[in-house]
């Protein structure tokens, strides 16, 4: 069994163990975390030996899952009864994401994608209130539509090439069926990445999910989709890449304008900004030979940033910026700095890497769009900062010690990536 498959087995076994212990665990979030965390860590350790891009994917995904598990205790009040299921779904979703990211053939990718998508839908639906349920239903229906398109593309590829492997450029040139199939499959993965024409459901889902789970939902799907799209583009050659460049640029424009319009709603702004980052990943994917490696690097860095922001936001119902504790305010500030791409945070390095690749392979216009999108992100990301830092000295908030490990892990990840981005780049590059 290859290391990625071993990681998947560990994750699934972990989920099964947590489900079997549901009697002991439900109602006590801390027990769920303690029980499920080792499985995430072991999966990461097992998965790191796999060949280069897969190693980065598994470590990134398991890292995101572990921080998600650490945030379980602060899942909003009335969910503790289902915290065992939430932990199991996190582990199963990660298993699906690892399967998707490290798939050697398209069928395995489809099943992995489906596992990830379904667990993401349920994690969105698990939080309180009507809005998450509505968002989950919409995210599910649109996901089902894109799955149908994906499977249709799979059929076309099989008709064209006779196998489920990633079709090569020669096979695409030989039969138009295969090209149509590759485009449909690409768009199916693009839904998971939340690129422009397919971002509708994801936007509402990212807005309505509980903060402690939204981080996982956003970053796991992006990292896994970036990896599999990268391999699809590398195999399929330039045409699909050029298509992705324009879709990515369009996504950046749409996400930036959408985020600027969200003056009041922080969660909606973060959802739109996730679409913008997906646009950056799409643009990187289409930019030449080392594009997919840059996209994988960007997605891994985005995962750490998103987890940091949502770790800081977790535990507070409506995130009233003025009433956050000092640690969480600083963590949120660092997260927003990184998301908006302020050096020396990792977000900036990732953006710069995409620009370098886009300039060499994607041509001037997409690069200028990327620069504008990246630079004007400062306007909507840093808008809450004066409020946030002004509040740090203000009201005294009941400290939530249980949050500290989750937030600290995310802070260390972001600071570490900020100072030594080369470590992740080395993992991503020789794909």
């Amino acid at each position: 069994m290859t290391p990625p498959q071993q990681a998947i087995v560990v994750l699934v076994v972990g989920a099964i163990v947590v489900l079997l212990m549901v009697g002991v665990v439900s109602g006590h979030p801390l027990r769920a975390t303690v029980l499920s965390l080792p499985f995430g860590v072991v999966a990461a350790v097992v998965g790191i030996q796999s060949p280069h891009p897969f190693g980065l994917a598994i470590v990134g995904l398991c890292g995101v899952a572990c921080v998600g598990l650490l945030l379980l205790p602060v899942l909003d009040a009335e969910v503790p009864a289902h915290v065992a299921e939430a932990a199991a779904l996190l582990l199963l979703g990660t298993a699906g994401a690892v399967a998707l990211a490290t798939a050697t053939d398209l069928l395995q990718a489809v099943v992995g994608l489906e596992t990830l998508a379904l667990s993401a839908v349920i994690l969105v639906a698990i939080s309180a209130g009507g809005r998450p349920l509505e968002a989950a239903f919409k995210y599910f229906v649109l996901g089902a539509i894109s799955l149908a398109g994906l499977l249709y593309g799979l059929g076309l590829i099989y008709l064209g090439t006779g196998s489920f492997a990633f079709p090569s450029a020669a096979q695409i040139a030989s039969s138009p069926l295969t090209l149509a199939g590759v485009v449909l499959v690409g768009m199916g993965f693009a839904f998971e990445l939340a690129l422009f024409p397919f971002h509708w459901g994801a936007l509402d889902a990212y807005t309505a999910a509980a903060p402690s789970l939204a981080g996982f939902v956003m970053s796991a799907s992006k990292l896994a989709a970036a990896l599999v799209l990268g391999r699809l583009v590398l195999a399929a050659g330039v045409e699909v890449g050029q298509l992705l460049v324009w879709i990515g640029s369009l996504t950046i424009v749409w996400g930036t304008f959408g985020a600027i319009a969200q003056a009041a709603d922080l969660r909606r702004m973060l959802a739109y900004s996730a679409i913008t980052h997906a646009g950056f990943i799409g643009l990187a994917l289409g930019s030449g030979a080392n594009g997919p490696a840059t996209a994988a690097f960007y997605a891994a860095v985005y995962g750490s940033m998103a987890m940091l922001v949502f770790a800081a936001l977790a535990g507070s119902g409506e995130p009233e910026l003025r009433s956050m504790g000092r640690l969480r305010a600083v963590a949120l500030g660092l997260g927003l700095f990184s998301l908006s791409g302020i050096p020396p945070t990792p977000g900036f390095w990732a953006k710069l890497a995409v620009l370098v690749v886009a300039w060499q392979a994607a041509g001037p216009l997409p690069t200028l769009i990327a620069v504008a999108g990246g630079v004007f992100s400062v306007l909507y990301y840093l808008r809450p900062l004066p409020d946030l830092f002004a509040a740090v000295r203000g009201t005294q908030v009941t400290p939530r010690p249980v949050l500290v490990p989750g937030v600290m892990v995310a802070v260390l990840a972001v600071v570490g990536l900020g100072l030594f981005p080369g470590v992740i780049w080395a993992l991503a590059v020789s794909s």
Partner: protein
Amino acid sequence: MMPLLAWSWVFTLPGLLLTALGVPSSRNKAGYASLAGPPLLLLVALAALLNGGSYAVAFDNWLPFLPDGAYRALADPLSALLLAILGFVATLVYFYSLGYMATDPARRRFFVYLDLFVAAMALLVLAGNLAVLLIGWTGVGISSFLLISFWRDRPGTLSAGLQALAANAIGDGALLLAASIVPTGCGALVTLQTPRCTGGPGGAEFLALLLFVAAAAKSAQGPLYFWLPNAMAGPTPISALIHAATMVAAGVYLLVRSHALLALAPEVSLAIAVIGVATALGASVASLYQTNFKKGIAYSTVAQLGYMFAGVGVGAPFAGLFHLFTHASFKALLFLAAGIVIHGAGGRESLSELRGLGRFFPFSRVGFLIGSLALIGTPLVTAGSFSKDAIIDAAIAKQPIIGWLLLAGVILTGLYIGRLFSIVYLAPPVDVHAAHHDAQSERPMNWSLVPLMVGAIAFGWLGSWLQATLAPLLGEIEALPPPIDPRGLLAFALGAVGFGLAWWYFTRRAEAVAMAPGQPVAEGEPTYRAAGWVSVLADAGYAVARSLSRVQSGGLPRYAMGSFIGLALILLLREAIR
């Protein structure tokens, strides 16, 4: 001493951490921990400047995905001079802020932001390659945003901060592009002009243009000036430190540092000079119409930066740098003196309310007078004359039209500074007891003016020594004009005429606030609405954003329709690319 200088950007970080963690816990001692940073920076910079030499730090392979991914820091006489200015003004502003912010509850946060700014500015000056420059460049922009919108509850401060952020974003974008398009292996600033590095697409012109856009955004030149007057929403020490002496000078520093690259791109240099002159004249005229005391001085800063840009544009980088050096001291003097009057008047900044209150603050009055004389450029006595004459001489030698325009500008300078001085310090006061003296907090503010006064007077004489130390760095430098020369006297005469005209006009017409009739006299709360074209652009952007977010109507069928149409179009599109 240079190796120590190369790491001098960490000097204020311990102060930042201590103040952030609230080490001097008592309320009135807040911020004392960070007082040590800037003086240390000043001493190390002066020592390094005196014994010369240069030292480069390089950690290769720090960012493997960039054309030049190393961490490079370069400490040489040029950066030592900038750090000396930064240390000198920052030390005085820190000391001044103890008095100015004495009653402000959030003084601790104020000093944390100041430390962040000084660290970022030092890193910017010490940057060896574009990647590290970007860290300092954006860090300075962020701390300026945080400080401008420091009094978050006052109306308009957040929008003023966002305007500054937007303008900085344009500059960062240009630098971001430059850092990613240079050919592999040559991001270092000192090697930008080598043929290998200008071989990229667009060659030297495009690279120089990008650096110019970044510098113009940071130094509020040309169309990108709109944010600086509104940056006066921040406390006055900030206006003195950031928006007069150091941050806005970062643009000029960048152009001086890459003067060899500008030499390769004559059209861009000409554009720099033309925009410099245009900004100088436009800002001088605009200052005449300001009803807010600090905004009047802010436009003066924009004008003087125009002079520096003109100096660098015509190919006299040392003249621009020398004016930057002297301008830092006398402009900070003007702002801090104004701060004393504003502080005394309970935070009111409108000229009609401050009329005549300056009389009750002798230190501020003397300081403002010396600053004004230096701004006009009275020979021998003030530093302004040495550096302004250097720029005008170099400009007339190389681009006569620009040179004479700069000379004519001096009369406008005399007019606007004379107007500000006479309204606040000479005109009969509106109501005598409007100003209240709080001796305890005023003492640090008054005494921090003295070194600046000495600087405004004496720094001119350092010109020749500076020229000697910086000669190897800035290539061939034409000799500085002698202290007394006909053109210098002519410039001073114009300035003096302007000053006298304003003096006569405003001391006799008690109620007049602006030269032009029909100017609204009373202005309640200072508004920070962006200038014309910027607010039009911003509103258009927001309109597009709102209409776009309305498309996201929440209805599932509309989303499904969008997905199908998108899917079909992309499928049809693939036919085109096959």
